[in-house]
C-alpha cells in the first residue's frame, strides 16, 4: 500500500445519477436481449405443435416464469422510457444537470408506475 491518496475505484465511487441511469439502460438492454429467447421460444413452440406449446406455456405460467415475465416487463418499460429520454437528448435538449435529473426521475417513476399498472390489470382480469 502507498501513503499517496488513490483515485476512487469504480467499486467505491459513488456514481452520479446520470451514470446510474445510463448503466441501468445498458443492463436492461442486455437483459431484454436475453428475453428475446422467451418470445422466440413461444413462437417456435407454436409452430412445433400443441405438445411443445403447452410445455413452454406451463414454464411461462409457472412461478419462476411469471417472475421472469415480470422482470422482463419492468426492464422493458425502463428501457423504453430511458430510450425516449436518450432520443430527446440526441436532439441536444435536456443536456443540463437539472434536465437530466428531472427526466431521470420521470423515467424511474414512469417505469415503476407502468409496471405496477400492467400487473394490476393482468391480475384483476381473470
Amino acid at each position, binding site marked *: 500500500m502507498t501513503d499517496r491518496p488513490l483515485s476512487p475505484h469504480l467499486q467505491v465511487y459513488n456514481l452520479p445519477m446520470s451514470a446510474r441511469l445510463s448503466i441501468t439502460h*445498458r443492463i436492461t*438492454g*442486455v437483459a*431484454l*436481449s436475453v428475453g*428475446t*429467447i422467451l*418470445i*422466440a421460444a413461444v*413462437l*417456435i413452440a*407454436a*409452430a*412445433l405443435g*400443441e405438445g411443445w*406449446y*403447452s410445455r413452454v406455456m406451463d414454464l411461462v*405460467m409457472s412461478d419462476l416464469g411469471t417472475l421472469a415475465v415480470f422482470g422482463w*416487463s419492468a426492464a*422493458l418499460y425502463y428501457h*423504453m422510457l430511458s*430510450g*425516449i429520454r436518450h*432520443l430527446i437528448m*440526441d436532439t441536444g435538449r435536456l443536456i443540463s444537470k437539472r434536465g437530466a435529473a428531472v427526466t431521470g426521475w420521470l423515467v424511474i417513476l414512469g417505469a415503476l408506475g407502468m409496471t405496477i399498472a*400492467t400487473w394490476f*390489470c*393482468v391480475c384483476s*382480469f*381473470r
Partner: protein
Amino acid sequence: MTEKQIVTAMKRAKGLGGGHSGVPHWLHQRVTAVAALPLMVWLIYSVMKLKGANYSEFTDWLSQPLNAGLMILLILCLFYHAALGLQVVYEDYIHTPCLRLAKIVGMKLFFIALGAACIFSILKVAL
C-alpha cells in the same frame, strides 16, 4: 517520441482513424428504437390479452394477417436493435481484438438464426 519509426506520421494517423461505419450503426439503432416503440406497445397489449391462451386460441390469433405481419416486423426490428446494442457492449468490454470479433460475429449469427426460426414459425402457423 524519440524512437525512430519506419511509418510516417500520416500513415500512423490513418491507421488510427475511425472505422467509417459508426454513423449508420448509430442511426440504425435509433430508427429501430423508434420503430420498436409502437410494436412493443402492441406486443404488451397482445400478451395481456392472450394471457393463459390455449394452443388453438394462440394459433387463431397468430393466424390473423395483421398479427402475423406485426409479429414479423417486431422480430426483425427487435433482433436487429438487440444485435446493434450488444455489439456496442462487446466493443466496450472485450479488449482482445480477435475474441471481440468472434463474439460479435457469433452473436449476430445467433440473432439471424433465431430470427429466421421465428419468422418461419410465424409463417408456418399463419399460412
